[in-house]
């Protein structure tokens, strides 16, 4: 074996370009899976550790006027282990540039639930005044411990000393309002203040309004708490529905699904590339294999020798991929750090990574073993003579359409028969192009899909300029009656349980007359009176169809139930829920109490004054900011999209080059003969191109629908119960994906053209002799 090992080493060195493609594929396969697994599993581990160590609650209940008596009643629900009673208020602060920022301040509640992490400052609970501010808001405003912050609440101004900077486990992904989909730490923050500060500085006289519950039965709480609290109950959330937590948990799932889907296709294609490379390499050594056999080497030692080509190179690639993957994980994690507030970020792996490493090595080794099978199992004399003539048969085309066949050029006939005599090679080519096309469509399309969601939501579905959400310590009943001559549309947002119940409280949007909410049904109609309209994501998850009657239970105000007919399915991304008109709502006995005003233009000063004098405060969000915020979210994925695109391109290049090269290697003797007969290089190049182009064309044609299907699956992994993404790819990016794929085929032809230049007629003919 000593000499065979030397041969192995020298073979690898002398044919390093071929081995490099095997190395590259093994390296990339391991890198892409392990790198992304490091991200999602690391995030998962970091989140779990954070949620566990800081005792994140399982349920959150928003209500008004909560008392200790309520807590005692709720505690009796089975499965509850702890309850924390808190008061939250929303205050505003100005950054000196007339920009209003919003802070949610809350009292600490029970220490043992949702314990904040102190980043800097005084120990939690040690001070009676001042505030603990969230780190990200402080950083974006250059605020430090010891600084003072002026906040406004209920027409009162309060100066608070910052006594510490914190993170909160219940606000890992803090957008501050449902109007935004990504965190905006410049405008939204949170903090904790003591009960004394709330009472003495803010003169807050109300009761608590938030319950944080540690429990083992979410559904029981969701059902029982509204019954206990009655009309005071506002909303219920659990870890899966509280956006500040669920977005982080969803992100883990999104990156995991992305990693699995992308890696599966990538590894399949990489295996294809590795197999073809090793096969090509070993087939060029059939005479050496026969020589070894003739010298007396056993089949086993020859098998092991050739299998070790695959083993050695793929192991090396897999090891380097494993070594580099933490770097890729860190790179992707870095992009996520801007969105999520976690005290620790770690990279973690599962045994699956080791499984992938083992699979890549195993496949390469088996490929090498199989590739050497023919020469190994044949008679040495046959392969030593080297003049085996391939068996060929007529193809169906020439039997069925003989006259058409006769019209084909000799080159075309040759290509047809050769391709059909090597169906595996052709199939691999088609699969390679098709898979590469799918990866590129997915790589470009997932980006386009998210951008298209932004354009659709903030350009088509919603056409307002400003969005006012009103909050008041007083009754809101009259806000829409108070403001006169507004050029806008009113919106009441409720939360409701639908029946059959899917375990989630959904958003119900009741809209007044107007054209600023412009969502369209799947049949192209606008929202009209007479029934409810369900968004497509909700309809799919709850199996709702048009014409069906469903029960809506208003869990945010009245607790009343309504039987309503589904009039249509709305093709809208966000928010997922139910739409109905004010008239339909009122016809069913609902009270129209809108909290949101959508404005075509801006609110007049007169109306602003009216709000002020009536003690109604408002939160203003412009659609421009919402769009920018949504684009921030898309950009947060940009690095992952770029990685997918880059890996897709690399794969297409390697797969196509390998297949072209394999086809060339199999026919190089015939090409050399043609050169001797007087064929020019460009004539031979045209011959070599035929199969490559045919394979590329077929692969591209199949790759288009397959790519769209893959993109749809890919995009669906990003959808949540709140937002649904629709697959979309711009014509430009589709053209770019096609150009890359076809360009790679062209490049392959060019590279093979270089090999034709170097084709040594004498060597090729000698090989025969």
């Amino acid at each position: 074996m000593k000499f065979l090992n030397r041969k192995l080493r020298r073979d690898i060195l002398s044919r390093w370009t071929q081995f490099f493609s095997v190395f590259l594929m093994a390296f990339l396969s391991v890198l892409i899976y392990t790198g992304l697994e490091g991200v999602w599993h690391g995030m998962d581990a970091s989140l779990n550790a954070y949620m566990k160590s800081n005792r994140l609650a399982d349920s959150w209940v928003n209500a008004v006027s909560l008392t200790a008596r309520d807590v005692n009643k709720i505690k009796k629900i089975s499965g509850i282990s702890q309850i924390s009673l808190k008061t939250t208020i929303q205050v505003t602060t100005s950054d000196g540039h007339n920009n209003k920022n919003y802070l949610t301040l809350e009292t600490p509640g029970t220490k043992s639930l949702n314990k904040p992490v102190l980043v800097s400052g005084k120990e939690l609970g040690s001070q009676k005044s001042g505030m603990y501010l969230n780190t990200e808001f402080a950083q974006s405003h250059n605020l430090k411990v010891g600084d003072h912050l002026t906040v406004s609440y209920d027409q009162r101004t309060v100066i608070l000393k910052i006594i510490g900077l914190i993170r909160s486990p219940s606000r890992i992904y803090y957008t501050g309002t449902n109007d935004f989909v990504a965190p905006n730490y410049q405008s939204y923050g949170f903090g904790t203040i003591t009960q004394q500060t709330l009472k003495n500085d803010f003169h807050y006289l109300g009761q608590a309004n938030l319950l944080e519950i540690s429990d083992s039965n979410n559904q029981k709480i969701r059902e029982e708490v509204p019954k206990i609290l009655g009309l005071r109950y506002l909303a219920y959330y659990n870890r899966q529905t509280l956006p500040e937590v669920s977005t982080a948990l969803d992100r883990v799932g999104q990156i995991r699904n992305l990693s699995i889907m992308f890696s599966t296709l990538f590894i399949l294609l990489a295996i294809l590339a590795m197999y073809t490379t090793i096969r090509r390499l070993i087939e060029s050594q059939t005479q050496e294999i026969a020589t070894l056999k003739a010298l007396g080497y056993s089949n086993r030692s020859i098998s092991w020798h050739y299998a070790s080509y695959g083993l050695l190179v793929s192991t090396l690639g897999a090891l380097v991929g494993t070594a580099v993957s933490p770097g890729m994980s860190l790179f992707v994690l870095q992009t996520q750090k801007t969105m999520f507030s976690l005290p620790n970020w770690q990279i973690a792996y599962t045994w699956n990574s080791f499984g992938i490493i083992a699979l890549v090595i195993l496949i390469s080794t088996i490929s090498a073993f199989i590739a050497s099978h023919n020469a190994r199992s044949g008679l040495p004399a046959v392969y030593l003579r080297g003049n085996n003539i391939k068996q060929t048969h007529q193809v169906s085309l020439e039997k069925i359409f003989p006259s058409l066949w006769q019209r084909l050029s000799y080159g075309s006939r040759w290509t047809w028969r050769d391709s059909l005599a090597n169906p595996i090679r052709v199939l691999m080519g088609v699969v390679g192009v098709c898979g590469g096309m799918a990866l590129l469509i997915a790589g470009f399309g997932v980006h386009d899909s998210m951008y298209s969601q932004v354009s659709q939501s903030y350009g088509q579905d919603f056409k307002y300029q400003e969005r006012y959400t009103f909050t008041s310590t007083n009754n809101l009943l009259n806000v829409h009656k108070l403001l006169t001559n507004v050029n806008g549309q009113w919106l009441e947002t409720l939360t409701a349980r639908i029946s059959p119940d899917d375990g989630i409280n959904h958003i119900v949007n009741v809209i007044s007359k107007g054209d600023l909410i412009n969502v369209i049904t799947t049949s192209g109609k606008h929202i009209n009176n007479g029934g409810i309209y369900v968004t497509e994501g909700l309809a799919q998850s709850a199996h709702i169809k048009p014409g069906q009657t469903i029960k809506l239970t208003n869990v945010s105000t009245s607790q009343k139930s309504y039987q309503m007919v589904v009039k249509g399915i709305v093709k809208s991304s966000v928010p997922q829920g139910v739409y109905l008109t004010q008239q339909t709502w009122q016809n069913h006995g609902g009270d129209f109490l809108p909290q949101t005003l959508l404005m075509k233009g801006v609110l007049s000063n007169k109306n602003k004054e009216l709000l002020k004098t009536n003690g109604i405060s408002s939160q203003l969000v412009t659609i421009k900011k919402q769009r920018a915020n949504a684009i921030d979210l898309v950009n947060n994925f940009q690095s992952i999209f770029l990685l997918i695109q880059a890996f897709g391109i690399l794969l297409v290049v390697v797969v196509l080059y390998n297949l072209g090269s394999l086809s060339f290697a199999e026919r190089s003797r015939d090409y050399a003969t043609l050169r001797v007969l007087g064929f020019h290089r460009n004539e031979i190049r045209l011959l070599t191109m035929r199969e490559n182009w045919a394979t590329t064309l077929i692969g591209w044609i199949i790759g288009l629908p397959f790519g769209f299907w893959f993109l749809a699956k890919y995009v669906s992994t990003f959808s949540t119960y709140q937002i649904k993404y629709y697959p979309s790819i711009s014509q430009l990016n589709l053209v770019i994906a096609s150009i890359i794929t076809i360009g790679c085929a062209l490049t392959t032809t060019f590279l093979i053209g270089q090999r034709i230049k170097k084709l040594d007629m004498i060597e090729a003919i000698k090989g025969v002799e």
Partner: protein
Amino acid sequence: MIKFQNVSKIYNLGEQEVLALNDVSFEIEAGKVTVILGPSGSGKSTTLNLLGGMDRASRGIVEINDTNLTELSDHQLSEYRRKVVGFVFQFYNLIPNLTALENIGIAANLTKNDANSGKYLEAVDLTSRKNNFPSQLSGGEMQRVAIARALAKKPKLLLCDEPTGALDSQTGRKIIQLLKDASNQKTSVVLVTHNAAIAQIADRVVHLHDGKIAKIVDNAAPMDPRKVAW
């Protein structure tokens, strides 16, 4: 008229130089059969490669009808092989995925003569096998197809590298007969072999040894190929 004037060919094999041909000069007359005879390593194949425009001489002149092959570009050499030369290989080198007729056609097409492919196949008595693939033919049949392929280009120079090397003697004699017949059609035939018996059919025999010409023998009465025995 083909002239080989003071031709040398040196191969660089790493640090070592191998002198395959050393100052070789001879002439080949049009329409005649010339056999280049010699043992392994004598320079036979190198001579054939230089004549066929597949390789360039390191020194000297390879002149065919007043054209010095050593001065031709790659493209011109391809044109030379296309229009002037026909090749017959020891192992036939037929394209496996083309039928016997198509193998002739693909070469004949180079000189726009593929309409007559059947005629050439008929000349080698293989019309009945026209739709057979190389894998369905015997060694002798394949070589006859290879000869038909070479002749279909109407070459002025037919180069044959050990054309009977892989055949039994009876089939070999038929092949030699075909090549001899080809020379009668105003085509010069150069046949490379180490088989001295075959040399008896030649008009001229060039004996090579260690890259040099050992002797040149003109045969006034070449033997009938059917009488050659080996």
